[in-house]
């Protein structure tokens, strides 16, 4: 009897965990491209209308003089749509696009403009589907500083360390603090290293009027390096006691 109960409990856990299967993954890389390319499908056409969250990450080596545009195209229930992401210089560009995709229609990406030495374009996405069996290939990481009352500066906290290969992530960051009259606004820097070994920093600052700061962005992380965070006071000195703030960092690995 005890054995059957244990088995039943185990199976209940398995079934619950498999509920994640409705989240599916889209991944298409265009690495070391030396020419622009025409519309190319980034995923198989869905059999039913579906919702996706698509991330584009666009980068070129330091010193490369390319001036490029990547265009994501899709068709929803109302017709055709497109969004552009421009790249010039050595600052990588990224964006997140929620899209609806009509059944049997294509989602494509294409590039135009002038190529420098080379460029990389990474397309990552998540499909939202009705619950099914199986497990998702997405991984996730979380770092929360809840009810924190001190800046972490100058110490950095590690959110994740990428595996040996360069990896794409989608980050969700929220920092907030109660409204206060001390004009003390807390900020967070999310620091990582891209595939060309360049440091990337994204910053969000909570407002002392109680408004949260929210960021959602994709990053490309060099293999074996870490994504780290540091919190600090917007108004120097950066260190020391702070209003009680909440920082949540959630990451999806593709």
């Amino acid at each position, binding site marked *: 009897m005890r*054995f059957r109960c*244990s*088995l039943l409990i*185990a*199976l209940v*856990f*398995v079934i*619950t*965990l*498999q*509920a*994640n299967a*409705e*989240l599916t993954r889209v991944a298409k890389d265009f690495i070391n491209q030396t020419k622009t390319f025409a519309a190319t499908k980034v995923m198989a056409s869905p059999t039913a209308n579906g*919702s996706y*969250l698509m991330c584009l990450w666009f980068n070129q080596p330091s010193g490369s003089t390319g001036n490029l545009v990547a265009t994501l195209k899709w068709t*929803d*229930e*109302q017709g055709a749509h497109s969004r552009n992401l421009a790249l010039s210089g050595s600052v990588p560009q990224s964006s*997140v*696009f*929620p*899209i*609806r995709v009509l059944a049997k229609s294509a989602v494509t990406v294409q590039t135009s403009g002038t190529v420098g030495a080379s460029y990389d374009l990474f397309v990552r996405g*998540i499909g*939202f589907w009705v*619950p099914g069996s199986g*497990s*998702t290939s*997405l*991984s*996730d990481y*979380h770092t*929360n500083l*809840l009810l924190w009352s001190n800046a972490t500066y100058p110490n950095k906290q590690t959110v994740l360390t990428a595996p040996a290969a360069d990896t794409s992530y989608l980050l*969700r*960051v*929220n920092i*907030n*603090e*109660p*409204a206060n009259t001390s004009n003390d606004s807390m900020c967070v820097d999310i620091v990582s290293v891209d595939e060309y070994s360049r440091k990337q920093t994204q910053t969000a600052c909570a407002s002392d009027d*109680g408004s*949260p700061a*929210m*960021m*959602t962005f994709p990053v490309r992380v060099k293999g074996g390096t870490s994504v780290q965070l540091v919190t600090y006071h917007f108004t120097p000195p950066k260190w020391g006691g702070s209003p009680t703030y*909440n920082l*949540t960092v*959630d990451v*999806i690995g593709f």
Partner: protein
Amino acid sequence: MRRTFLAVILLFILPAAATASLTEVRQDFLQQTATFSATPVMAAPAADGSYLISVYLDQPVGGTVGATIAWTDENGAARQYQVLGGTGVFAVRLMAGTTLTVATSGTVEGSYNLFIDGMGFWN
């Protein structure tokens, strides 16, 4: 023998647990011909939670419908953002026992679709 069998079951469970902290939010409002007032899009969580919420509003040319998502954060502060046609992505902190709602306003041209998709992140 039974212990071995249970151990095998647990071995299957453990890898799955690594991805157990992503949950889905999904609420479709299809072929709407009128605006609607604040409507919950998910069940209220038992603990404060982190969400990534995507709003996708799809309407014919001429429509001026906007969607407003609203929630209460962990500090008890009411938050709201409006998407005026098109899309938006929001990093939401939601207070335990409260929910995220969506409402629409504006002029409807024929009909419109509104899709709320997202993920909850759990440790």
